[in-house]
């Protein structure tokens, strides 16, 4: 079992220490100093601090956290809710699991700071169902907080500061990681994203004003409060401050997690992971999970932050870096990607339901050597019918990686069509 990243920084500094998973150990390491600082400030000021820190959501979209918090109603006529997205369903992404397992109090302290800032009374932590250990760690931590009156009524002696936390086990679908699909699932319904408006800040979990943030996003918050905005901003880039846990997988010598400042060049991230396995040549890197377009080996100098990656036609996503060496057939990759999105589409929106299946059939056909030039032309076009037109970003996530593969590895596709077979016998099995 992985207990700590290969490269550590402030978030993961104590992840190797079992005591850090207990309240006493967490406090001994300086825990809850951030919350104490927060409750000494008026709530709006806490939101302003988070805004000023430039913290961006770590769930994939990179939305400004402080700004999101400020969308919550300022009135207290309805209960306000925080939902923590611990579904971590993006293939290639495995950072939130470690944070929940090894640093549960970081997340809980972040939640309490958010609760103070937003005036929220209830939190639901939605954890991917397979993450049994994360659920156990969070439940045990929540229990300790209640015992120490850090949850419940009058937290830290603050009259009226009350908060309850429920740890909820997800029931397994990719789309339940989309924030409104998650809310539906949390309510016991089929996991299907909701149309917007209304947005969760007005009508979220159980119809209540809700803010949904990723696990890692909350884990950063106590450090910002404790050590200050300037300290936080001194890490990472101007537009993407702080560190993140890059999860590197695929054809590297040392796959795993690496806590590095945002903006670390891709080459350096791969270097920490020991480089490409067996001295082989690199063929491509998906920098942010399965739904983000692939980068060719010529882009290794790109700093791993959204503002730089978006210039290269891709995104930081969840920071799940997937490395592929020269043996890899990119048409097989496209087929795997397309199958995943076909299988996981919730099926509501026409473009996504029909488009993901069509794209998969085309990829499969080309990979099996049955594809024609017409099929390839269709594969160029069909993703564009899906992009930007649906209830949630799933259709984009399904279209982008295919477009990326076609952009950078068109030769692979054309070779399949020309030779009427897969020219990469060494590639992974489908």
């Amino acid at each position, binding site marked *: 079992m992985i207990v700590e990243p290969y490269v550590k920084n402030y978030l993961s500094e104590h992840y190797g220490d079992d005591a850090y998973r207990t309240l006493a150990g967490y406090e001994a390491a300086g825990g809850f100093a951030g919350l104490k600082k927060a409750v000494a400030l008026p709530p709006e000021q806490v939101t302003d601090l988070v805004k000023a820190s430039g913290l961006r959501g770590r769930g994939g979209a990179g939305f400004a956290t402080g700004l999101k918090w400020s969308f919550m109603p300022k009135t207290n006529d309805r209960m306000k809710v925080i939902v923590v997205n611990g579904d971590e369903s993006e293939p290639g992404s495995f950072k939130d699991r470690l944070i929940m397992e090894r640093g549960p109090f970081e997340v809980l302290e972040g939640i309490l700071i958010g609760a103070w800032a937003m005036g929220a009374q209830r939190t639901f932590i939605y954890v991917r169902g397979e993450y049994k250990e994360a659920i156990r760690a969070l439940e045990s931590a929540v229990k300790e907080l209640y015992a120490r009156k850090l949850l419940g009524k009058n937290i830290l002696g603050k009259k009226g500061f009350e908060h309850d936390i429920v740890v909820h086990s997800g029931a397994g679908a990719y789309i339940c990681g989309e924030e409104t699909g998650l809310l539906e699932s949390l309510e016991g319904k089929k996991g299907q994203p909701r149309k917007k408006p209304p947005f969760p800040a007005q009508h979220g979990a159980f119809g209540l004003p809700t803010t949904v943030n990723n696990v890692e996003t909350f884990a950063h918050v106590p450090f910002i409060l404790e050590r200050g905005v300037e300290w936080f901003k001194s890490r990472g880039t101007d537009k993407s401050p702080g560190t993140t846990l890059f999860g590197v997988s695929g054809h590297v010598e040392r796959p795993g997690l690496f806590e590095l400042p945002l903006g670390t060049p891709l080459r350096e991230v791969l270097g920490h992971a020991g480089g490409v396995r067996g001295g082989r040549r690199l063929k491509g890197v998906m920098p942010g999970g399965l739904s983000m377009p692939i980068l060719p080996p010529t882009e290794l100098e790109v700093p791993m932050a959204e503002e730089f990656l978006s210039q290269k036609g891709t995104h930081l996503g969840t920071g799940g870096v997937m490395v592929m060496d020269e043996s890899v057939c990119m048409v097989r990759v496209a087929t795997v990607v397309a199958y995943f999105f076909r299988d996981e589409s919730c099926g509501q929106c026409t473009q996504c339901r029909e488009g993901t299946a*069509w794209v998969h059939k085309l990829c499969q056909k080309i990979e099996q050597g049955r594809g024609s030039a017409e099929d390839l032309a269709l594969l160029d076009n069909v993703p564009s019918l899906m992009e930007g037109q649906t209830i949630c970003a799933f259709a984009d996530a399904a279209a982008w990686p295919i477009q990326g593969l076609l952009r950078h590895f068109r030769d692979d596709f054309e070779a399949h069509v020309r030779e009427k077979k897969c020219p990469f016998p060494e590639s992974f099995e489908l």
Partner: protein
Amino acid sequence: MPTLSVDGIDYEVPEGRTVLQAIDDLGLLMNGVEIPHYCWHPKLTIDGSCRLCQVEIEGMPKLQIACNTPVTNGMKVHTKSERVLSARRGVMELLLINHPLDCPICDQAGECKLQDYAFDWGVTSSRTREPRRPAKKSVDLGPTIVFDQERCILCRRCVRFCREVPKTGELGVFNRGDESLLELFPGSELDNPYSMNVADICPVGALTTRDFRFKVRVWFTDDVESVCNQCSRGCNIVASRSNNKIYRFVPRRNDAVNETWMCDHGRMSYKKNANFRLTAPSVDGHAATYTDAVKRAAELVRATRDGSGKIIGVASPFASNADLAAFRDLLARLGAGPARFSVPRAESDAILIEAEKAPNAAGCRALGMIESGDQLGRAELAIVLGHTTTAEVFGDVKNIVLIDTHESALSVRATVSLPARTFLEKSGTFTNSRGHVQDFSAVVEPAFEAWSEADALAQIAAAAGIS
């Protein structure tokens, strides 16, 4: 009131509406402003999933779905830009890759929104060579509805209808992605008093009514506007007619009366109107000519009036306002009191079905007629429109002149009976329980000679020499 600009024309629209709702409120949707849509329905919650109603809104980088985008003052919407048309073509193409091209044998053909929109907004050729998704054919969902699953485009109108209107929730979409299928929940069947509405709102040939399926091609039918006569709600309907025969009733939208729905009982009542008709006049239990029947009725009227005998009028809540008014006027000239009437009653619900099982009790009341089921007492003559009153109340009445549409115990007992036209065979108005006076038009001609009640009364009056 916010101003909404659609394709360069400004409209004042109600507050708090989405683009599609506002255009619908103005009566312009698909009637001047063409925004095709499948999942959106004016009387169901917004779903936002078919994505066909995407429009371009100035200041918004992405296309927006008109059904769910709230109107803001000064919003400028474009429905005909190349981006919009291209997105529409995309949706149509994607919907068609799994939809069978079986229009020649599909009963929805001719009133199919997939057919219509593909013709208007789609492309003329198919780019897919992949086999279509297999699914079930011709499955009974319950006693009224047949389901062709392979034609379903998953707009989920039927799912929302069952959840939101009868609140029975029999249907759901199961599985996900391109394996999504509309199905009944296990152990249930689609059997509620409003079940057949799902066939109306299904934009394609997936849900059809067992009753109408394969009976007639819709392009051979004319639609005639009428009003259902099965209860005092007076649901607005369209009767589909072909070769002087009615094939079905379907609800016609009236937001103040029945929204866009009707109950299955009312829908199937078109059959009732055709059977057990009174087809020929009779006098003293024997078939007679119209001339003889009218003559006999006139004699009875005159003799009773001259002999100062008692005349009683019995009206029918199934008669039209014009017929009731003629009856009231005749009774007044005869010196009789106000007509009596009675209304059949049964169960009601909180949706559409009213307890009064007749269309025009309010019309009777408005004309001063008296609701009573008591014995009529001793009388020389009763003039009766329809047979809603049971035969027993006529116990001590010597003669009965009956003008009626259907055979009954009373038509056997009547001294004179004259066949009348049903509401489907004449034009007129009914007044519903909320006081709406609603028009209906003649849909068919009776296969035998029959008059409206007003015409029959006029003939009798003329023959009796009553001006």
